[in-house]
């Protein structure tokens, strides 16, 4: 049973460029959340997708957008990259059913470097 998979593992971009990160949730999971983890910080909530809609959003600008596909996989898009966007981007999946929806399963992340 595959866990949460993210691609790519590493990415280098320059300021002003756009980037797309991808996430496949754990089998049986239907909810995907994205987090940004800057160096030395805890994960910061970006947004959550369920049933192909953005359900909640953290304090991130509109440059950060996402999408969820019918197979529950998800993409995170960041436009007009800034140096401060350099971070580890984590995808977390869960099941929004009644039971066991409290636990998040994380991927290994995509390390984004903006030069």
């Amino acid at each position, binding site marked *: 049973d595959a866990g949460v998979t993210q691609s790519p593992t590493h990415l280098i971009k320059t300021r002003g460029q756009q980037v797309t990160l991808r996430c496949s949730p754990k089998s049986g999971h239907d909810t995907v959340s994205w987090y940004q983890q800057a160096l030395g910080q*805890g994960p910061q909530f970006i947004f*959550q997708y*369920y049933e192909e809609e953005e359900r909640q959003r953290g304090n991130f600008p509109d440059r950060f957008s996402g999408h969820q596909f019918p197979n529950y996989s998800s993409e995170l898009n960041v436009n007009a990259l800034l140096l401060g966007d350099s971070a580890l981007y984590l995808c*977390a999946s869960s099941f929004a059913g009644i039971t066991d*929806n409290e*636990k998040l399963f*994380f991927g290994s*992340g995509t390390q984004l470097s903006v030069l």
Partner: protein
Amino acid sequence: AQSVAQPEDQVNVAEGNPLTVKCTYSVSGNPYLFWYVQYPNRGLQFLLKYITGDNLVKGSYGFEAEFNKSQTSFHLKKPSALVSDSALYFCAVRVPGLISGGYQKVTFGIGTKLQVIP
């Protein structure tokens, strides 16, 4: 707004000694509390959770945590530390219930680096 504070950037403990990693939280209503561990170049792994019931919850790898509502704390503990426990530990909180089909967002602390010395 909900928040988590982890007052110690780093905790050092000798192998075989008990360890405690501290966490306090702020949330409206009853909290769901979690501990996650992160090893280098890896995502976070779930350790344990408090939802309701017994204030002492047990989790993976021999870890446990004690919920104290009056002190709004949820400290992580282990009776005997192992070198392999060295990692980054995150406390997290969310409020119960679903919102628009999904669950309420989870807020993480800044993390505490645990160093177990052989």
